[in-house]
């Protein structure tokens, strides 16, 4: 995952995005983020699990232990209503930031 401070705060957005329609456990979430972002983001475990636990503590995620497809028990995370609301806010913020940065960089290029 790029270490730029710009994307450091995006971990909740990435997690909530991949959990929007499905239940996944930690390793699967990491894989889904990596594949879904075209390998642009590859979250480290050191950032992923604290973020998962933080979202769970905030009530955005709910976790349950279940047998995985591969056999052993895994901790599956599911997005909650609060998590959906949080995701909508994160997406809105991200679009606004993205638009602003795009506009700014485009105007700088035009000036040059």
């Amino acid at each position: 995952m790029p270490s730029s401070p710009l994307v450091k705060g995006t971990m909740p957005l990435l997690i909530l995005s991949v959990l929007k329609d499905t239940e996944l456990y930690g390793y699967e979430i990491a894989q889904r983020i990596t594949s879904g972002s075209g390998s642009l983001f590859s979250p480290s475990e050191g950032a992923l699990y604290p973020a998962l636990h933080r979202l769970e503590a905030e009530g955005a995620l709910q976790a349950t232990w279940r047998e995985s497809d591969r056999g052993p028990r895994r901790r599956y995370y599911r997005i909650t209503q609060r998590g959906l609301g949080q995701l909508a806010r994160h997406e809105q913020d991200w679009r606004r930031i993205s638009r602003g940065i795009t506009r700014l960089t485009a105007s700088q290029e035009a000036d040059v």
Partner: protein
Amino acid sequence: MSDSERFLREVGDRLPFDPSITADVVAELEGHLEDSTNALIDAGVGPHEARRRAIQSMGDPAALADEIRRAHQTPERLLAAAGAGAWTAGLEGLRGLVIGTIVSMVLGVLGSIAVMLLREHLPSAAPAELDLSDGSANTLMTVVALAIAAYYAGRRVPQAVARASRRSLGWARAATGFVLATVALYIGLFGIRSEQSLETVVGFATLPLWATLGAWHAHRPMRARFRGRKRFLLLPAVATVAAIAVLGGSFIVIDETRVVMWADRFAGWEAVGSADLVRARPPLDPQSRWLGPNTREVTVTVLWEPVGYTDLRFEYWSAADLSEPGPPRVVTTAERRAVIPIDADVWAEREVTIQVDLSTYREIGKVYVLITGLSPAGDRYLLNDPVVDRITLEHTAMEWILAR
């Protein structure tokens, strides 16, 4: 132990959670390690190298544990920590108090034995002086018991606070040490509103230190500290406290002293008889007791009829004597503070309540509450069991210090 087990154990050891939550976190990370390793093996990496890379990708175990711990910190957790801290402090303080009481009693007995042994080699005047310090010994023993209670509470609370708040033990130790020290200081110096002796003040003033010391030791197992050569450090510590107990007075003599005081008390009252108070002890019901607290209102329950006695009076005498010796010394310095005639009708109710304004009495000393009456022969007799009690002045230890 394999590398992955070592990694997981290191993470688990740094998580101040309930064991079940820690086990969940560790199991989750273990599953991730398994999945990462298997994925690498599937990609053609050798098993050993795959395991190494999987662990490496997890990063520093301490940093990971700290981040997970921080993720669990919510404002509600602070409230839970306050509750857990108070509950643990109460329970552990009580446990420490029981242990402390036992320890202080043992020390008291040792001190008493030492006093008895010393007595044989001291001048005749010395034993009396030693006897007079029984009060100091009791105070000292109380302080020892409270110090152990404070230490126990301080030692156990940080773990409970860290667990409930999901914060580090270091944070919990600092927070607990501060709170316990403040509470102990308040109780010791401001909360106990009575005149205090120097050793009491010094003893109570050390309570915050004991609580803080306990908090500082929170991460250490209790037994480990007294293993090996360290256990020999206990000997001088016990010897020092025992010596203080000896110097402070004796415990075993207390029962004996009570008996002596009982006899001396009457000897004392007889001596005061020359001051027209009591010449001899009349027959009385031993169950007649002063029941009232040492406040403005004093209630005496009368369980017998003073047949034949006239001119009944409620009297209270006081004596200013800081050293609090037993009679007759106190009695000889006693002064009559109030004489209140008792209406004969009151006796029928078997209870006398007298308003005595002790709040204006600012001297340190003792108060004697008694009822006297004139016998048919014209002598004034003490009609109740003489009550001796200390005046509880509105002095905190801090006021006591400041006054000096």
